[in-house]
């Protein structure tokens, strides 16, 4: 059974101590700036001079670099290839691959997009590595997010690994009764059909039981909810959030001014 169900890494760092909303604003802010900025080098600046140093401050550099090289780089690399090959823009053909023309415009477009997505996923990875999901939800609920909405998000994150493990059990049960799940791609896809029924219907029954379980624990109580965790929101947090908002406004203004 999975012991670790979120990306969160428990460490004692300055970044961990920031308010969850500040870190969420930071992730959105860095993404926004990477996408809106008029300069192509902005995402690289964000990654090298903001995200990597912050991962060091948060003492999660190893986990971040691990995710960057094993997950983000392959994904954005694939995206770069697809866009470089299939984006029908530009006339300056650099080389031809089969029937596809790779132009310098499509290459720079693909590079720019892949860099932005790299910066976006990196920002949110750093956010997830340093923010406990319960703290985030408690803080957002305290600020007015409906508790039902918060519950759906957080329980979904936790239930996905459970669904995977259940799917594996069902596949094992079906295989023990002679279902062939190996062979060609089509054969493997068709083997998934008998999995869908038990998994979906089983999950629907579970949803009802889970609803009863949380109702039994006062989930729909009209009392103002409290939180076991104490979530700090310091003056520095507020300053950082306002600063990020100002930076975002400056970037938007520059974008308009330079276009």
């Amino acid at each position, binding site marked *: 059974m*999975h*012991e670790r*169900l979120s990306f969160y890494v428990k460490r004692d760092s300055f970044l961990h101590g920031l308010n969850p909303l500040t870190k969420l604003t930071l992730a959105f802010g860095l993404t926004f700036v990477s996408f809106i900025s008029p300069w192509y080098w902005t995402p690289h600046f964000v990654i090298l001079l903001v995200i990597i140093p912050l991962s060091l401050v948060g003492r999660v550099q190893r986990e971040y670099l691990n995710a960057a090289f094993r997950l983000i780089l392959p994904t954005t690399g694939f995206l770069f290839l697809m866009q470089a090959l299939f984006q029908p823009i530009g006339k300056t053909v650099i080389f031809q691959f089969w029937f596809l023309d790779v132009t310098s415009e499509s290459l720079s477009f693909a590079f720019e997009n892949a860099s932005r997505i790299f910066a976006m996923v990196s920002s949110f990875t750093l956010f997830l590595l340093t923010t406990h999901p319960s703290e985030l939800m408690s803080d957002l609920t305290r600020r007015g997010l409906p508790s039902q909405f918060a519950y759906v998000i957080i*329980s979904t994150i936790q239930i996905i*690994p459970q669904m995977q493990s259940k799917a594996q059990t069902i596949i094992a049960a079906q295989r023990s009764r002679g279902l062939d799940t190996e062979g060609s791609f089509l054969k493997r896809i068709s083997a998934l059909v008998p999995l869908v029924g038990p998994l979906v219907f089983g999950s629907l029954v579970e949803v009802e*039981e*889970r609803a009863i379980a949380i109702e*039994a624990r006062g989930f729909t109580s009209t009392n103002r*909810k409290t939180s*076991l965790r104490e979530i700090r929101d310091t003056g520095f947090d507020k300053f950082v959030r306002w600063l990020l908002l100002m930076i975002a406004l400056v970037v938007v203004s520059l974008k308009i001014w330079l276009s």
Partner: protein
Amino acid sequence: MAIINLHQLTYHYPLTDTPALTKVDLNVKEGEFVAIIGPNGAGKSTLCYTIAGFIPHFFKGDLEGRVEVAGIETSSSTLSEWVLNVGLVFQNPFNQISGAKYTVYEEIAFGLENLGVPRDEIKSRVDQALALTGISDLADRSPYSLSGGQQQRVALTSILVMQPKVLVLDEPTSQMDPIGTREVFGVIRSLAERGITVVMAEHKMEWVAQFADRVVAIYEGRVLMNGKPREVLTSGRLVGRGFAISRYTSTAREAVERGFWPKDLELPVTLDEAVQGFKK
């Protein structure tokens, strides 16, 4: 003074013609431990859901008669008010984990957070509840990493921490192996000793005989018997109706016919009683 009052209770689930419960009368006194027994489909879970307020607040359908717990009628209360008085623990421990918390400690605090209990009080009540059910050592573990018996003890603790007046347990060990069953019944034993009002639907008669002050046998939605554990659990009226019967009772009943068990001696329910009887 009865804390639970059911009067002429009849209930139909939505879109069904046959009632799940028919004219059920049941009174439970404060501090009493009542076990509900019956074959599958007899109406045990329906009765538990009714006492716990989920019928009619969660499952709609047609409810007739009166359901009253701690002086409040179910029809004049909301479910979130009702759960302050009645706690419910059911069969599948996995589905009772909220999914919203990452450690056992947080999981147990979930109900108190929902009720708006102040932080300091949450901490002291969670510590007390963990100690009561003997799972303080699991406090920092993920609820999903636990065994079935441990998860069910977490589910029980999550309800006990809310300090309900009545605890309803719907076959809490039915999906458990013998070790898990022993763990959960260990907790139930300590609750019984503390005088908490408990209504428990259960198939495992040897355990029922050890805890219950009274046993109610339900058959086809009606109360078939209501009396002292031994009187009900060894009654011939349960035979042939799909009731789970203690293996010691069945063996002794067979032994009576073959002349190994004295006819005037009461039939046993537990292992100890069987040993004593066969010695005689």
